[in-house]
C-alpha cells in the first residue's frame, strides 16, 4: 500500500495534524499494521518536499510544535492519478512457494508435506479472518473478504500443484 497516497487522500477532506492523520489512517486501514509516528512524519516531510502538501499553520504546544498540513493542487492530481491506475497483480507468494516446492523435489524432501503445511497455515488464517468478519462491521467484512479471496486463490494453487507433483518431479529431475 502507498502510505503517501493514502495520507494525501485523507487530507482531501481538510487540513490535519500528523497525529490526526495517523489516527484516521489506523482507524480505516491500519487494523493489522498501525502506522508508526516516525512513518507519518517522514512521509509528510517527503510530501512537503515534493510540493504535494503545504504547512497551513503551526501551533505551539507543551511538546514539539504541531504542523497542520493541507493538500496542494499537485497533491490532488497525484492522488487522482494513483486512484486511476490499476495495481500490478503480483504473484509474489506463488513464486516463493514454487521455489520451495522445486527445491524440495530436487533435494528429495517431501513436497506434499510442504504444500500441506502451507495449506494448513492458510486455512488457519482464513478461520481467523472468518471469525473476525462475523463480529465486525461492514468495513471489517470487506477487508477480511479481500484477504479471504486471495488466500483462497493461493489454496487453489496449492491443491493444483499437489495434483501435479508427480509431473513436476519428472520435469525438475530431468
Amino acid at each position, binding site marked *: 500500500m502507498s502510505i503517501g497516497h493514502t495520507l494525501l487522500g485523507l487530507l482531501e477532506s481538510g487540513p490535519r495534524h500528523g497525529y490526526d492523520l495517523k489516527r484516521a489512517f489506523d482507524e480505516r486501514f491500519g487494523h493489522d499494521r498501525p502506522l508508526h509516528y516516525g512513518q507519518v512524519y517522514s512521509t509528510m516531510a517527503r510530501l512537503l518536499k515534493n510540493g504535494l502538501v503545504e504547512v497551513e499553520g503551526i501551533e505551539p504546544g507543551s511538546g514539539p510544535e504541531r504542523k497542520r498540513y493541507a493538500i496542494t493542487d499537485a497533491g490532488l492530481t497525484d492522488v487522482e492519478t494513483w486512484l486511476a491506475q490499476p495495481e500490478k497483480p503480483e504473484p509474489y507468494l506463488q513464486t516463493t512457494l514454487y521455489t520451495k516446492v522445486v527445491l524440495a523435489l530436487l533435494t528429495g524432501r517431501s513436497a506434499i508435506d510442504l504444500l500441506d*503445511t502451507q*495449506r*494448513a497455515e492458510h*486455512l488457519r488464517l*482464513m478461520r481467523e479472518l472468518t471469525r473476525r468478519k462475523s463480529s465486525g462491521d461492514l468495513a471489517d467484512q470487506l477487508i477480511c473478504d479481500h484477504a479471504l479471496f486471495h488466500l483462497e486463490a493461493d489454496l487453489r494453487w496449492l491443491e493444483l500443484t*499437489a495434483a501435479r507433483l508427480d509431473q513436476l518431479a519428472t520435469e525438475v529431475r530431468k
Partner: protein
Amino acid sequence: MTSSTPQPSTPLLSADALHKTYGPTPALDGADFTIRSGEVVAVMGPSGSGKSTLLHCLAGIVRPDAGKVLYRGEELSAMSDAARSALRRGDFGFVFQFGQLVPELTCVENVALPLRLNGAKRKEAERLATEWLHRLEVDDLGHKRPGEVSGGQGQRVAVARALVGGPRVIFADEPTGALDSLNGERVMRLLTDAARDTGAAVVLVTHEARVAAYSDREIVVRDGKSRDMERVA
C-alpha cells in the same frame, strides 16, 4: 435418540481404514476420520477424490467394502438396515447441495417432516418447525412451497429441516455449492452457529476453502486416502 452423552474427548463418530470400490474404480482406499461432539470438521479434496463417498459411509447410507465406522462406539455396518434408518432419522441431519426439499409440501411442512416421520403430532412438529424457520431467518416463507423461494432461502429451509430433530451429527454435502458468495456465507454462518449452540457435530464436505474456514479443522481426501491436517501443521 439414546440418552447418554459421550465425553468431549471421545470420538462421537469415527472411521478406520475405509475401502469402497465402484466397479473398477476405488473411491476410498484406506480413509480414516474422527469427529467429536460439537466439532465442525471440513472434508476437502478435488472432485472425484472420494469425499462424498466418505460422507455416505459415515452416515450409514453406503456400506464400505472394508474398514469400519463407529458411531458412539457401535459399528454401523453391524446394525440392521432398520436400525441404521432409525439412526439417520433420529441422530443424523442432512443438508445437500440442492436442498432436496419435497416440492409438494410447504416449507414449514418440509421442516416438520423428520419429526412427523418419528411420530410427532402435526401441531407440535409444525410449532418446532416454525421456531427453526425463525432462527434461520426465513420465518416468512413457512406457507410457500420450495418452488416459490430462492436457492439461498431454500437452503436455509433445508438447514432448518436438518436441525429440527436435535441431531447429534449434521452431514452437509456441498451445502453452498449452488449459491452465490453472499448467500453461501449466510447459510454457513447460520448452520455453524446453530450447530455450535445445540452441540451438534458437523461433517462438512466442500471443495471451497472459504466454506471450510467455518470449520474447526479439516481432513483432506486425495485418491481415496485421507489426511488429517491437524497432524500436518
